[in-house]
């Protein structure tokens, strides 16, 4: 009776949920289902990332679409007996929004999911990514079939141009135009590449797409290859993504078996193969010319452009590189039409964008939203606001290449132009939320330390410039800032942006420049008053114990790792500043709020 299950349990097996033992949950479910004689009625399906990573492991039960979160192996016997056998959904495993006490039973009623609009992630949590039939059942490979049987390469390119799709990897270059350059370039061999060397701290959009719907990317590449005239494509996959690697390799095997890759695809006479290359482990490999160098077996260093890869890329042949998410949009545009796609979004930014929403926000996870949505909607309606009722200070978009957007600009629409206007970028879609306890100078220093470490060293603006900017920032956070430092940082930042060889250097100063622009007062406080307003920079803060509040309970003294807190029992305690390492343990253990930071 295998084809007629009455219930499907979709268990998230994205990297996040797997690390929270969702594979054990699948085993436990199958055990209990078998024990209760339900094996012919209920099917357990492993899916890709569901997006609501903060609350994993996640199970969604269809047909009712009941959403279970934070499920553990011990919950499974109860879940099977109550819900699967008796039809009574288990309340204690449902999501309860922080502001209410009532659990929300179904997925579509949860704020996190309600405001999202899914194109690239439309199959997440609904299909088994390791089963090509499930992808096909949801309309998969229909776009490729249409492109190969009904359209000329020129028509495909026109369709992508008309859709308004722009690169989702960061720069936002029109995809159709990029394809056209490569198609028109002279060369017998042409190549296409899928860039899945995702390296921004806190970003995991590409990994998630690869894990939850690898066929979508393969189908996009088949369509692109046909449009451009490529016979072979590469997927350049970050080496730290073993699950994505496993799934994409399986997907390539299945697609080849079905004749959707390889020779004579769908009987149309078109040949196209895909191979997967594991990344070389450096951030700069995400830059297209470095990536090509790495594919060729060279040291991954950027090359001067022009010539652009569209003219001279992999082994000197015309090459087209797009990001995972860009490829993922392509099948939908071809299957549903450019007009449908361009109806979503703003004047200049069409469709949706996937963001990994992380940092000081209640619902961390992966979200897909229409272009033009306000930052406020993402952070408050989808993200559920800031934990512990703290105030929002800034949002960082675009990772280490992006900028910090202050809370006062929360109502700007999220599109390529608006973000650029305020000094940030869309980037590949990292979105880090920061609360009032974040020091913006320290944030700028952190991001710059990342790009500094990842600079390949080929050009001096990036190699030397980021190093000196980082030294200045470090001095400021240590209370050794000089009055002229802010102007110097601005001057150097602008210069590096103009002169660095590739995107890494061109964007590295962004976090510094935007924090100076929007949070100049914090820089001034560090330099002039030797104070860190957010009370983060250790050199600029002191811990003291309030005479009024201290009860002499001795807890702080017992926990102090440096043993510099002294005081008799039931008498006021004192911190010896000379030995204090400012770890903050005394403050976190004090039950009377007696430890003050200044």
């Amino acid at each position, binding site marked *: 009776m295998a084809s007629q299950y009455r219930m499907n349990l979709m268990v998230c097996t994205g990297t996040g949920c797997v690390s929270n033992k969702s594979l054990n949950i699948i085993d436990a479910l199958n055990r209990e289902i078998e024990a209760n004689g339900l094996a012919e009625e209920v099917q357990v399906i492993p899916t890709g990332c569901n997006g609501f990573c903060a609350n994993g492991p996640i199970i969604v039960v269809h047909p009712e679409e009941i959403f279970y979160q934070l499920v553990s192996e011990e919950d499974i016997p109860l879940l099977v007996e109550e819900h699967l056998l008796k039809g009574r959904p288990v309340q204690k495993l449902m999501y309860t929004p922080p502001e209410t006490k009532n659990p929300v039973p179904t997925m579509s009623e949860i704020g996190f999911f309600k405001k999202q609009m899914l194109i690239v992630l439309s199959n997440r949590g609904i299909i088994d990514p390791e089963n090509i039939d499930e992808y096909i059942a949801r309309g998969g490979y229909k776009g490729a079939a249409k492109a190969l049987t009904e359209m000329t390469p020129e028509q495909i390119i026109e369709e992508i141009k008309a859709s308004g799709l722009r690169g989702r990897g960061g720069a936002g270059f029109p995809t159709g135009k990029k394809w056209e350059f490569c198609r028109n370039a002279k060369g017998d061999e042409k190549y296409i590449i899928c860039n899945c060397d995702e390296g921004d701290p806190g970003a995991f959009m590409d990994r998630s797409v690869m894990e939850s719907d690898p066929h979508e990317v393969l189908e996009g590449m088949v369509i692109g290859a046909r449009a451009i005239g490529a016979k072979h494509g590469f997927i350049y996959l970050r080496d730290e993504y073993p699950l994505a690697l496993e799934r994409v390799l399986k997907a390539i095997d299945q697609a080849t078996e079905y004749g959707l890759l390889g020779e004579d695809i769908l*009987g149309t006479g078109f040949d196209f193969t895909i191979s997967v290359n594991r990344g070389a482990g450096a951030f700069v490999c995400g830059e297209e010319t470095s990536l090509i160098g790495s594919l060729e077996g060279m040291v991954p260093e950027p090359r001067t452009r022009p010539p652009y890869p569209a003219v001279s890329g992999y082994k000197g042949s015309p090459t087209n590189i797009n990001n995972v998410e860009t490829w993922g949009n392509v099948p939908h545009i071809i299957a549903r039409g450019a007009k449908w796609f361009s109806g979503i979004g703003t004047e200049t930014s069409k469709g949706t964008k996937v963001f990994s929403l992380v940092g000081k926000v209640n619902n961390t996870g992966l979200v897909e939203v229409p272009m033009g949505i306000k930052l406020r909607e993402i952070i408050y309606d989808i993200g559920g606001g800031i934990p512990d009722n703290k105030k929002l200070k800034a949002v960082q978009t675009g990772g280490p290449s992006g900028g910090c957007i202050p809370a006062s600009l929360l109502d700007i629409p999220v599109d390529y132009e608006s973000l650029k206007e305020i000094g940030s970028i869309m980037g590949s879609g990292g979105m880090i939320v920061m609360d009032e306890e974040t020091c913006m100078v320290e944030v700028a220093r952190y991001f710059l330390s990342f790009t500094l470490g990842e600079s390949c060293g080929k050009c001096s603006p990036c190699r030397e410039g980021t190093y000196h900017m980082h030294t200045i920032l470090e001095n400021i956070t240590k209370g050794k800032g000089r009055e002229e430092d802010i102007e110097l940082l601005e001057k150097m930042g602008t210069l590096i942006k103009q002169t660095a060889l590739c995107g890494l250097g061109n964007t590295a100063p962004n976090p510094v420049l935007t924090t100076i622009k929007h949070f100049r007062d914090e820089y001034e406080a560090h330099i002039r008053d030797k104070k860190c307003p957010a009370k983060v920079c250790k050199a600029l803060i002191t811990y003291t114990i309030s005479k009024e509040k201290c009860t002499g309970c001795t807890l702080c003294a017992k926990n102090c790792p440096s043993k510099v807190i002294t005081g008799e029992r039931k008498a006021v305690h004192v911190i010896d500043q000379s030995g204090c390492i400012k770890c903050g343990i005394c403050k976190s253990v004090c039950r009377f709020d007696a430890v003050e930071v200044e």
Partner: protein
Amino acid sequence: MKLKPEDLDKITERMRSSTALREGACRAKITVHMGTCGIATGARGILKAFLAKKEENRADDVLVTTSGCAGLCSHEPMATIQLEGEPPVKYAELTEEKVGRIFDEHVMGRKMVKELALAIGNERII
């Protein structure tokens, strides 16, 4: 097996049952009440009978699901049939023969089995 474009539709067709289940798109929904009382009077057999009828008719757009006790424990096993756009109908004291008739006439034939029906509509929830 190498596919031709038209084979994509065949796979979609073959998978229709699970697609419908996950998308919640259905023409009719059968809910078998599986409280302790329902289970004690044989609701499991009723559920299996509905599933067998669904399989037999290849009725991919019919959902068979379960819920808790309907409140009328002395008349279990019970099931509720809801056709799209129509009020739900409750059937009580079900047997496998009754399930066969209800499935054929009500679910497939879209005509309520009057003499077996207990009530139409839901209780009001205040």
